[in-house]
C-alpha cells in the first residue's frame, strides 16, 4: 500500500445525497457542495483573475460579470498538444507547449483556477508539465476546482462545465471527440500537481472525485 503522507488528511467524503440537478434549456444545472468554498474567501475589493481551462460558456461569463475581474478562457481540451499527448513524449517539449498555451500577461496571479475534469485527461508527464507552467501564476491564496478519477473503470462522460451560481455548475455535452482518460490516485495527483494541496474531496455518485484545491504553503504571498 503506498504511503499516504499528507494526502491522508484530505477530507474526502462520499456524497450520500446525490447532487440535485435540473435541466434548463439543455443545460444540466448541478449543485456543488465545494463551489461555495471556492468563492467565499475572495477579496472582491481588487480585480480578480480567473483561469478557465474549458470553453467560454455564457453562464460563466454571466456569473463573473458581477465581479471586477479578468477571466482567461483557454480551452485546453481542444488544443492539439492535449488531444495528441501520446505524440509528445519529451517533458521539455510538453513544458514548452503548455507554456505557449498558458501565456498570461506578465505579473498575472490567479485567484481561481477552474480545471473541471481536465486533469483526468493528462498523463503523468503532461500533468507535471501543466503544474510547472501554472505555478508562476499562482499566489498564496490561489484556489482551484476540478474533478479526478482514480480508476479506469470509472467512465468519464464527455462533458463541459461552467459556473452557474456560487453553489451550482452547468454541465453540457461536449461536441468534440472525447480524449483518452488517465486516472490518477490522490497520492499520484498530489505528487504531480505539486503546486496545490487538496483541501477537500467529495466522491460523487458517478465515481468522480470533486476536488477543492488551494495553493501550497511554499507558494509566495501575492
Amino acid at each position: 500500500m503506498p504511503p499516504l503522507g499528507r494526502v491522508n488528511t484530505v477530507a474526502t467524503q462520499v456524497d450520500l445525497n446525490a447532487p440535485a440537478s435540473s435541466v434548463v434549456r439543455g443545460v444540466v444545472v448541478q449543485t456543488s457542495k465545494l463551489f461555495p468554498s471556492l468563492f467565499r474567501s475572495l477579496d472582491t475589493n481588487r480585480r480578480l483573475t480567473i483561469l478557465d481551462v474549458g470553453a467560454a460558456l455564457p453562464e460563466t461569463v454571466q456569473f463573473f460579470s458581477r465581479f471586477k475581474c479578468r477571466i482567461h478562457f483557454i480551452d485546453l481540451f481542444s488544443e492539439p498538444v492535449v488531444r495528441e499527448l501520446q505524440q509528445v513524449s519529451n517533458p521539455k517539449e510538453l513544458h514548452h507547449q503548455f507554456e505557449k498555451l498558458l501565456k498570461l500577461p506578465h505579473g498575472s496571479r490567479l485567484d481561481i483556477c477552474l480545471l473541471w475534469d481536465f486533469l483526468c485527461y493528462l498523463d503523468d508527464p503532461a500533468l507535471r508539465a501543466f503544474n510547472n507552467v501554472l505555478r508562476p501564476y499562482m499566489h498564496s491564496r490561489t484556489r482551484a476546482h476540478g474533478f479526478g478519477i482514480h480508476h479506469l473503470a470509472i467512465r468519464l462522460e464527455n462533458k463541459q462545465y461552467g459556473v452557474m451560481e456560487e453553489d451550482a455548475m452547468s454541465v453540457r455535452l461536449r461536441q468534440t471527440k472525447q480524449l483518452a482518460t488517465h486516472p490518477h490516485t490522490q497520492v499520484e495527483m498530489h505528487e504531480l500537481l505539486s503546486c496545490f494541496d487538496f483541501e477537500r474531496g467529495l466522491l460523487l455518485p458517478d465515481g468522480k472525485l470533486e476536488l477543492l484545491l488551494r495553493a501550497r504553503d511554499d507558494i509566495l504571498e501575492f
Partner: protein
Amino acid sequence: MVSTTARMTTPNILKYMEINMFDKRKSSRQGSPQIKESIAMQENPSVAAQAHSPAIKSAVIGLDIEITGDVKASANIKINGHIKGSIVESSHNVEIGESGKVNANISAKIVIVAGLVEGNIAGSEKVLISKTGSVRGNIVAPRVQLEDGALFRGSIEMDPGKVVKPVSPAVSRKAGNSSHAGSSIKDSSIGTGAAPVQDTGSKESGLALKSG
C-alpha cells in the same frame, strides 16, 4: 508617411474610394486599400436601435467589400464584409454581421459580434457575442455577454461598476499621438495628415478610412 485618412460623408465616400483605388503612387507607398466594391451608407434599423440617439445613422460595409486599413467613424458601423487593419473605431456602436470578418482591434460604445473577429475588443458600455459569433482576442468592457453557441478564446476583463467614455475618432485624430487610447489606437493615428475634424453630432454619418 503620408496619410490617406479623410473624413467621409455620405455624398463623397464613393469619390474617396475612386481616388484611392486609382492613385497608384499612393498605393505603391502604403499598400492600397483594397476596396473591392462600393460601400453603401444607409440607415440600419438594427444597429440604430442600439443607439441612444435616434439621430445617429449607420454605415454598412457590405458583404462583398474587403478593406485593408483602419476604419474610424462617428456613426454606427455594421460590417458584413471583411476588414483587415489595426483598428475599427466608432464613438457609437459596431456590429459585425454573420458574414462579417474583422482582423483588427475594435473600439466602440457597444460591440455586437455575430461574425468573426480576430483582435481585441474594447467596449465602453457592452460587448455581446451572439450565437454565430466567434472572437479570438481580449475583451475589455464593463459588461460582456455571450450567447449559447458563441465561440471565444482569450481574456475578458469586466468591471460592472465602471462605464468608460467612448473614444471619439475625431478627438483621437486631433490629439495626434496622445496616449489616452492605448497603443493600437495611438498607432493608427501616426502620420495623420488630414485636417482636424469637428464632430458636429449632426445627423450626417461620418466614416474615415485609412490604408494599412
